[in-house]
């Protein structure tokens, strides 16, 4: 081949790439499927809605209500709370710490500390209706319990001036205190939080982690609140979103590896079966 032929071929390949990319909008097809935008941190997903990049932001009720309160008049909630489920502190399978934390949570509910913490962060409605029964706790000797936490999730946990704060942080401190130990929060990406625990990077997870059957196969849960999922949209609900089914063809921002992401995947399967 001559020099010119080679360059003409390469040029033609380039033009083909550009044209195909341009005409297909880089592969994004119009369909009844939900366009799921996955962000590594929940704060990025919430930011996407604030910047009007997506039609809805889908997360636990806790951060959604928090963002609503922080930005009055800017957003609204579309539809009702979906699939309320317990969130728990996760520990490794077979680790006695799990049973101790369960005892601690029961004690926190019994002595009113839990209610105080939840009310401090405006989360009273998420308290367990049937808190576990208390049993005597054997105090340990002043060690440290390290908690993995995805600190991008206010009001449960977020970083303020480099320090982890939030309801989960307070609960971790109170629970560790009851056990005669100190709590230390380790910021961890949510998508790797369970491997981080099983890989001994921390002793427990406190990160608004929903207690699902799938996750319970890998870790033990000590449940402490009961939280559902909420869809947050711009004021006036311009995309007319009312529930998961109404998200077909819309763009939704979620954090990676969340129950919300799983719920959207499941809904997409339903939408695919239902045809157009």
């Amino acid at each position, binding site marked *: 081949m001559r*020099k010119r032929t*080679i*360059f003409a071929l*390469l040029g033609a390949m*380039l033009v083909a*790439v*550009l044209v195909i*990319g*341009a*005409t297909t*909008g*880089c*592969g*994004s097809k119009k369909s009844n499927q939900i366009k799921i*935008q*996955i*962000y*590594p941190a929940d704060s*990025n*997903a919430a*930011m*996407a809605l604030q*910047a*009007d*990049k*997506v039609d809805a932001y889908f997360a636990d009720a806790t951060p959604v209500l928090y963002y609503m309160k922080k930005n009055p008049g800017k957003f609204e909630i579309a539809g009702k709370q979906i699939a309320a489920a317990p969130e728990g502190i996760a520990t490794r399978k077979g680790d006695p710490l799990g049973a101790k934390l369960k005892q601690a949570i029961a004690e926190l509910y019994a002595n009113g500390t839990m209610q105080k913490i939840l009310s401090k962060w405006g989360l009273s409605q998420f308290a367990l209706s049937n808190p576990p029964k208390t049993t005597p706790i054997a105090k340990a000797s002043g060690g440290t319990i390290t908690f993995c936490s995805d600190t991008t999730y206010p009001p449960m946990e977020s970083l303020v001036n480099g320090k982890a704060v939030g309801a989960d942080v307070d609960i971790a401190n109170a629970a560790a205190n009851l056990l005669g130990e100190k709590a230390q929060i380790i910021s961890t990406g949510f*998508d*790797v939080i*369970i*491997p981080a625990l*099983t*890989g001994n990077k921390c002793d427990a997870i406190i990160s608004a982690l929903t207690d699902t059957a*799938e*996750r319970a*196969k*890998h870790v033990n849960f000590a449940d402490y609140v009961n939280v559902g999922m909420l869809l947050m949209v711009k004021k006036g609900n311009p995309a007319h979103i009312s529930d998961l089914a109404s998200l077909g063809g819309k*763009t939704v*921002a979620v954090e*990676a*590896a969340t129950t919300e*992401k799983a719920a959207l995947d499941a809904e997409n399967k339903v939408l695919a079966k239902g045809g157009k």
Partner: protein
Amino acid sequence: MFIAVAVNWHLVWTRIVNPNGIFAHALWVTIYISIVAQILGIALGLLAALMRMSSFRPFRFISGLYVLLFRGTPVLVQIMIFYLMIPGRSLNLLLFHPPETIAAGILALGINEGAYMREIFRAGIDSIDRGQMEAAKSLGMRYGMAMRRIVLPQAARVIVPPLGNEFNNMMKTSSLVTIIGVYELFTDAQTFQSNTFSRDIAPFIAVAFWYLVLTSIWSFIQAMIERKLAVSEHGDEISLRERAVAIWTEGGGMVRSAWPWRARA
């Protein structure tokens, strides 16, 4: 040091030979972003290099400021800035409307790349004897024509190898756009991995393999271009095969005796 490695090799194999449907889309987005960003980078780099050599002082200043700003700041920060700067859901380019996440990724990576390309172009053009330009001018060529016909074709030989390196880098750096929610190769692997709830690194080994495929294909294309550009160096060419395997040889593949099959040439 003890590193517990639990790799599900069956999963690695499955992810490589039988990836799911969305994988093709993710692969395509990665290729598209890298190619378009590199083209943008080359255009901007050439422009900035010519501005840098201009006798008009403000041009030189703009070129310097461009490199200072975009080579001196992390590309991750730039991606975030472009993402938030572009309003709405898509970038309106009259003919077509790319999703703004992809557009932001391309712009940030391309403009960042341009700052590095400027230095590569400048070095390439500097390597050509000034006499070449003077001779072209004395033949009555204007600056633009002399640049196009005389200087740049010769400089290309110096420019292409580092340009290829930059593109190799670009394909790998493009994984950073995952932070603004672009579904590309890395996001695909990450999503898959997070669904396993385990420390299994299989999805990442598989995605590393796919990046390796992309960069290997490019290395071959680059070797082809370099060979074609070298035809003017009569008697000194090395074969395509030698260029393609250059990274394995001592002396960067330029050592003839290292390869017995050179004897036939």
